[in-house]
């Protein structure tokens, strides 16, 4: 384990320790429709992060008192497998995963047309199989695709990634090492028009650095959106006249 005392350099010849440019995402791998039982699903790798998302619903709400008469409720459960992190994690939710679940749900809820399905629930489950900084954003990306795969009417997809600060420089999509010893982390999520639905930040940034971080993360989200879009097009390309996932997901608002 590297102590805080030893000065760790995060750059070598202008590249990051894993060879990326400062504004470069880690490699992304997506598969849609990977689970038989779920109504929609998506497996996603972002660097060493491996997450899988499933969507069930719209379905009946249990317990009943959670029902909303004018709209579907959305539930989101982010969960880490015990073996997904260096030191084995006790099974079950901890305080961090409750917070991640809450902000992830709030990141997706604005694009789900919940008023189409009063008294029902849309359940989103995200399992982290391997974690390496960025699991919440990977989870949101996978969940967004899984929602589309489940045919849940949405205004648009949601794409998510983080920017960080290491060695005084703003970088895109920090990996574990950069996150642990870096100076700030800013995960965001947004729709294709750049409207933000998730924003968290910890560390220490000036206003100018925050601005740079948001710009960088926004550019990252746009790249991710293209990947999400492509995988959904491929998934539905066997259907007639369907060239864009934007037709799969509902576009008008009620």
């Amino acid at each position, binding site marked *: 384990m590297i102590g805080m005392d030893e000065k760790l350099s995060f750059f070598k010849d202008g590249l990051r320790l894993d060879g990326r440019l400062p504004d470069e995402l880690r490699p992304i791998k997506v598969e849609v429709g990977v689970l038989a039982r779920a109504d929609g699903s998506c497996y996603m790798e972002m660097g060493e992060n491996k997450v899988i998302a499933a969507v069930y619903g719209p379905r009946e709400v249990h317990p009943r008192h959670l029902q909303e*008469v004018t709209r579907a409720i959305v539930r989101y459960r982010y969960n880490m497998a015990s073996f997904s992190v260096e030191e084995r994690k006790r099974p079950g939710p901890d305080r961090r995963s409750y917070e991640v679940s*809450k902000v992830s749900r709030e990141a997706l809820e604005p694009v789900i047309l919940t008023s189409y399905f009063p008294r029902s629930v849309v359940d989103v489950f995200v399992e982290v199989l391997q974690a390496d900084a960025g699991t919440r954003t990977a989870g949101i990306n996978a969940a967004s695709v899984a929602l589309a795969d489940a045919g849940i009417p949405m205004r648009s997809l949601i794409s998510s990634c983080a920017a960080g600060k290491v060695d005084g420089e703003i970088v895109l999509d920090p990996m574990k090492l950069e996150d642990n010893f870096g100076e700030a982390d800013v995960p965001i999520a947004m729709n294709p028009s750049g409207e933000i639905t998730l924003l968290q930040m*910890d*560390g*220490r940034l000036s206003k100018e650095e*925050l601005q740079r971080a948001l710009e960088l993360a926004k550019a990252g989200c746009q790249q991710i959106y293209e990947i999400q879009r492509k995988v959904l097009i491929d998934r539905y390309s066997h259907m007639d006249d369907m060239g864009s996932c934007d037709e799969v997901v509902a576009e008008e608002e009620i």
Partner: protein
Amino acid sequence: MSDVVMAEIRKDYLYHLMLKGERADGRAFDEYREISLETGLIRKADGSALVRLGKTTVMVGVKIQPGEPFSDTPNKGVIITNAELVPLASPSFEPGPPNEVGIELARVVDRGVRESGAIDLESLCITPGEKVWIVFIDVHILDDCGNLMDASSLGAIAALMTATVPAAQYALGEDYPLPVKDVPVATTAVEFGDSVIFDPDTDEESVADTKLTVITTADGSICGMQKSRPGFISQDQIYRIVDIACERAKEIREKFLEV
């Protein structure tokens, strides 16, 4: 159904007020309710603060006790922050372990204290790898009339700034004031239509599309942010909120937290 109807009516009312540039209690959009702060009321705690933000009332107690460090930070003290949304404070709070709202509140308060570097954790090491000071920050909500984030964060830093490390009690030398190196202040705004309203009360919170908390340090840096509620926010609005948040935080810091 009637709850839904009432919420719609209230939203309408507040919205129309806002179009006229007004809030139900007459405040400007970027104006805080009256703040009062009393420290040291709880003698059994090592630090305490009672914060009132309008009618919102929060008691924060700090206890400092020796304990074991985390294995990956053997020479650092530990901060543990908890928030209790006890059912005394609101008809919507229920008994039981903290739900996601209480957990988020505790984690955002914690983030401000931790990320600002307010507490020098290395100074809280007693014997490396064996014994360090554990700082418990317990946020006890007494009356929820809106904007618990700012009230709780203010209570936490005020309680820490007036806290004593009870070394004598554990035969670890003389008591000394907990060293506090920075003064994080949380400032929260909600968005409603296109307007941004600071220090929202319960009604304003309940009709807001989105909420953004910005925590700033004494030198004007940002050390924590948290968007909550399912709504959109644009980059421009973020920057606008950050700008005003820095100003408000500075005023609060000067008025209540200057030594």
